[in-house]
């Protein structure tokens, strides 16, 4: 019995119904692609943007720093740690940084905030949101001078301009209060108000001197990975490679708990929508298959009367549902491709709805919704549709073989 061909022909006995069902499967694929694609794109963006705000995807810190950060908890040999981390597979770059709280003062006013001390020569715009967001002046020029880069909002609050002096006060490694003077060389604007109004970038060696750190001490080494999906794997590799006491190796999920929470919640609601879409589509497929079985009872009765086994009948209906899935997937590809292309390249601009400074979890959200699908998402959508169709076919297929032939034959 060439069940495959037979099933294919059966599918087209009700052309319109098959086309409509195929189309609804295709539409489901389009929805799933949209949901998953915005997720894949949006989370990646958000996670990367977050990672570019100081901690990286993977952070190496002194044990206990994450729970209660303080300058009394430096990572020793941080420069060496960086060299090691740089060689680890999956790591794109790594940066030695000092992060701490400070008071910033100008002639007029004092405000509290954070400082991020860096090696300016090693920092790159790609992994440093603040360099990328410079709106005037220059990035710090060396690790040892008295320059500072501040945000627009802080500049406004303190009434500072390029070339003006800023005094920062912090507690050093021993708990003593220390102050230093610096000169504004650059101003950035990320769009996130708290950051533009409360974060400054300083040269790392200057800060080390100020707070009594040795030349190779820092509060963290931030590693940026090539692909955020493999952050955990990279973290584990780093942990194995470093094998150091006193330090802990964390991912963005721990260092940026707020954002991790938002991503997880969004993912969760995304899954729920996907499941609901899946169920709706499954109901459609189920209905089509069951109807097509029930209206062919007579025919199945005849086939069984001439010796077809219920098992073969089961196979026949399952093959029909496979074909239906295939038709649906083809439809899906046809209607989703242009849609995907559009969203991938152009996107939908929500600036009107959410404004261009909307942030979540401390990270700026791009108001242009674009999508991007990971390979594994494509695979899981397609296999999901396939499994769904197969599962919807099970009952109708079973039913076909279990209507007693006598009853089937009575039906005209």
């Amino acid at each position, binding site marked *: *019995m*060439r069940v495959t061909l*037979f099933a294919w*022909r*059966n599918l087209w*006995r009700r052309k319109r119904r098959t086309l409509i069902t195929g189309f609804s499967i295709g539409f489901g694929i389009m929805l799933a692609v949209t949901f998953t694609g915005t997720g894949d794109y949006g989370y990646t963006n958000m996670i990367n943007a977050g990672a570019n705000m100081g901690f990286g995807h993977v952070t190496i810190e002194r044990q206990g720093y994450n729970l209660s950060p303080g300058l009394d908890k430096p990572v020793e040999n941080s420069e060496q740690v960086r060299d090691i981390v740089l060689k680890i597979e999956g790591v794109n770059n790594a940066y030695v940084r000092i992060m701490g709280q400070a008071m910033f003062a100008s002639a007029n006013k004092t405000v509290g905030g954070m400082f991020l001390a860096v090696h300016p020569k090693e920092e790159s715009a790609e992994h440093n949101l603040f360099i990328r967001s410079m709106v005037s002046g220059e990035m710090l020029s060396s690790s040892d001078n008295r320059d500072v880069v501040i945000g627009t909002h802080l500049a406004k609050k303190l009434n500072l301009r390029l070339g003006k002096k800023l005094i920062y006060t912090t507690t050093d490694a021993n708990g003593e209060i220390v102050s230093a003077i610096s000169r504004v060389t650059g101003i950035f604007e990320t769009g996130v108000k708290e950051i533009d109004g409360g974060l400054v970038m300083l040269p790392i060696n200057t800060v080390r001197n100020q707070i009594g750190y040795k030349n190779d001490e820092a509060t963290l080494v931030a590693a940026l990975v090539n692909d955020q999906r493999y952050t955990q794997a990279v973290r584990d590799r780093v942990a194995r490679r470093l094998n150091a006491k006193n330090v802990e190796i964390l991912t963005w999920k721990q260092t940026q708990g707020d954002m991790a929470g938002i991503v997880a919640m969004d993912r969760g609601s995304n899954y729920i929508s996907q499941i609901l879409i899946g169920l709706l589509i499954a109901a459609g497929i189920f209905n089509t298959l069951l109807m097509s079985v029930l209206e062919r009872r*007579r*025919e199945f009765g*005849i*086939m*069984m*009367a*001439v*010796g*077809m*086994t*219920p*098992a*073969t009948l089961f196979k026949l209906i399952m093959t029909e549902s496979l074909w239906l899935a295939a038709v649906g997937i083809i439809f899906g590809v046809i209607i989703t491709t242009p849609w995907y292309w559009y969203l991938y390249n152009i996107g939908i601009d929500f600036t009107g709805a959410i404004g261009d400074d909307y942030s979540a979890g401390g990270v700026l959200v791009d108001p242009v919704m674009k999508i991007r699908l990971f390979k594994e998402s494509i695979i899981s959508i397609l296999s999901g549709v396939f499994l769904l169709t197969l599962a919807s076919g099970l009952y109708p297929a079973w039913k076909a073989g279990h209507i*007693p*032939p*006598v009853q089937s*034959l009575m039906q*005209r």
Partner: protein
Amino acid sequence: MTGAIVTMENVTKLYEQGKIEVRAVDNLTLTIQKGDFAALCGPSGSGKTTVLNLMGGLDLPTEGTIHIEQQNLSELSRSQISNMRRDRIGFVFQSYNLIPVMTAYENAEFVLKLQGVPEKQCHERVMNILAEVGLQGLEHRRPDELSGGQQQRVAIARAIVTRPAIVLADEPTANVDSVTADALLDLMQELNRVERTTFLFSTHDQRVMDRARRLIRLRDGRLEQDEVRA
């Protein structure tokens, strides 16, 4: 060995119709012999269809035993019964016998395919049978492109192409005009004479009964008359 193809011993079949119990077949004992060309007749509701269904294992008796070629049906599994139908029994119904998406050729071929007969042999046998039932040249027509009589010929071709022990036909001529009915009967008679295929068909039609060599008359599920003619 007797020449019995099917034997029914004290077979009773009860159907529930709502709260009422219907004795479709009532303590019936009947043997169909090899080479029979027998008509099962009787008024509507007398149990003809039920008897044919029971003989073909499409339905199970409430009481009594049925043997097909010495095999007790109640001792066979569902799939064994399926295989027995496939290999030993041909079924022809009153109408809508054929699978609509398949051509005459494919319908006639269907059971051979189920049996797994190799392609080449299949082709030869199907072409021969279709010629035998007078459908040469119509092999590629779908059922809806054939007349009622032609459709019944395809059904008969499908029933006999496997050389079954018995062909069970439930009012095979009821839905065709009398000329076509005569032609179908000619065909079955011919197959019975030449191939020794055993036929048991149910009918209401007196002219069809007249052509049977054995007349089995039922009333209320019981045997009223069993007459073998010369």
